[in-house]
């Protein structure tokens, strides 16, 4: 019987190759697929294109791949907080495609849902619109954006089951659900992997059909980028 559950991250990432395009969930360092990123570092795959809202920080998240010069191109909406990134970008070593955050999310969702293209107002009249079709709807200008294409999507969830069903936690949800099913193969790493039937079918954020491989992640660091507190 076909099983989605993989024993570990190495088994889950079988098939990743140089030159591929990967989607990676997370916002800042929140909800990133830590295990998958570590394995990509270990594997040393090169010339990859990463679709991810952010590029990590210098020594964590996608910053780890940047340091090893594994990334050829980043597709992101916000890439601050990362000196090495800025250096590689300004020196021309790294190709960068900046996309409005909502458009980025929807280009994932369009790939997931089988829409080749959609009109959005975001970016009209800016650099982002260059070379794109412009059209007026309801008296307002919009640009045509196309769905992403990717080989693997790496996402991180809170709980998951053997059927691939996923539940995310808090704002660690972010781009993760949008990327499920948006690539040829979606690999989900979860904090807690449970047998089928343990998750309430009414509370599942991403049905298993969007996930091809799932594994129990380990050693989550869950680093906090801006620890802000108030006094009692």
């Amino acid at each position, binding site marked *: 019987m076909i099983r989605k559950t993989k024993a570990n991250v190495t088994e889950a990432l079988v098939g990743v190759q140089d030159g591929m395009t990967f989607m990676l969930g997370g916002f800042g360092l929140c909800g990133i697929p830590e295990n998958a990123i570590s394995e990509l570092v270990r594997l040393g795959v090169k010339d990859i294109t990463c679709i991810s809202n952010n590029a990590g920080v210098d020594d964590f998240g996608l910053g780890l791949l940047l340091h090893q010069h594994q990334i050829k191109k980043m597709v992101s909406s916000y890439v601050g907080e990362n000196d090495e990134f800025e250096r590689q970008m300004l020196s021309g070593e790294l190709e960068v495609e900046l996309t409005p955050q*909502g458009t980025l999310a929807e280009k994932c969702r369009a790939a997931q849902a089988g829409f080749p293209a959609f009109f959005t107002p975001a970016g009209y009249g*800016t650099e982002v619109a260059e070379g794109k079709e412009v059209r007026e709807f309801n008296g307002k200008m919009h640009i045509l954006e196309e769905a992403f294409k990717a080989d693997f999507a790496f996402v991180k969830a809170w709980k998951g089951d053997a059927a691939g069903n996923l539940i995310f936690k808090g704002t660690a949800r972010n781009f993760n659900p949008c990327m499920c099913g948006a690539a040829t193969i979606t690999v989900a790493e979860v904090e807690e992997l449970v047998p089928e039937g343990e998750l309430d079918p009414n509370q599942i954020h991403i049905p298993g059909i969007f996930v091809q491989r799932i594994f129990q992640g380990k050693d989550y660091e869950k680093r906090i980028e801006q620890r802000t507190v*108030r006094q009692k």
Partner: protein
Amino acid sequence: MLDKNGIAKRIAQEVEDGYYVNLGIGIPTLVANYVRDDISVEFQSENGILGMGPFPIEGEEDADLINAGKQTITALPGASYFDSATSFAMIRGKHVDLTILGAMEVAENGDIANWKIPGKMVKGMGGAMDLVASAENIIVAMMHTNRAGESKILKRCSLPLTGVGCVKKIVTNLAVLEVTEDGFLLLERAPGVTVDDIKTATEGNLIIKGEVKEMNV
């Protein structure tokens, strides 16, 4: 002249009962501290929370609960979490009532630039392009001039644009301005600031109609 908190305080007066508000990074974040507590307002953060509360008490930080500025936060009763596509459905679909964000430059035609300095700084637009392209009620919070004393309230933006013709209102350390067809209409001046001070600090066309009242902050 206002400091950052003063700007936030003045903007807070624009927040009405029942509003859903998206606060950008920087000065806009401070607005939450000054909203009247007899009205009901929900803050949306585009990374995926509605009903954002204050920062957590020390020791109660949750790495899985942050705002768009990557700061640890809390959730208020009635809050909800959602994915990025849903978050921007709220924004693009005009469900957010008020958007407050910072800017490097604003022009008299309502254009705004706040995401890139060519060859120098490219942090990216984040959610700003979606926000300015969709929101019908945008307030820009910014300093009137840069550190060199040059105006950031311009005839035309010199930096790459974030959005075109979208800004309606600006609150700076010197003034409250409304973007009209003819230019920047001066609505209010900051305490201790004269109309001439504002004229000097404004490169774009400044419109002065009658007496300009001082802000009540």
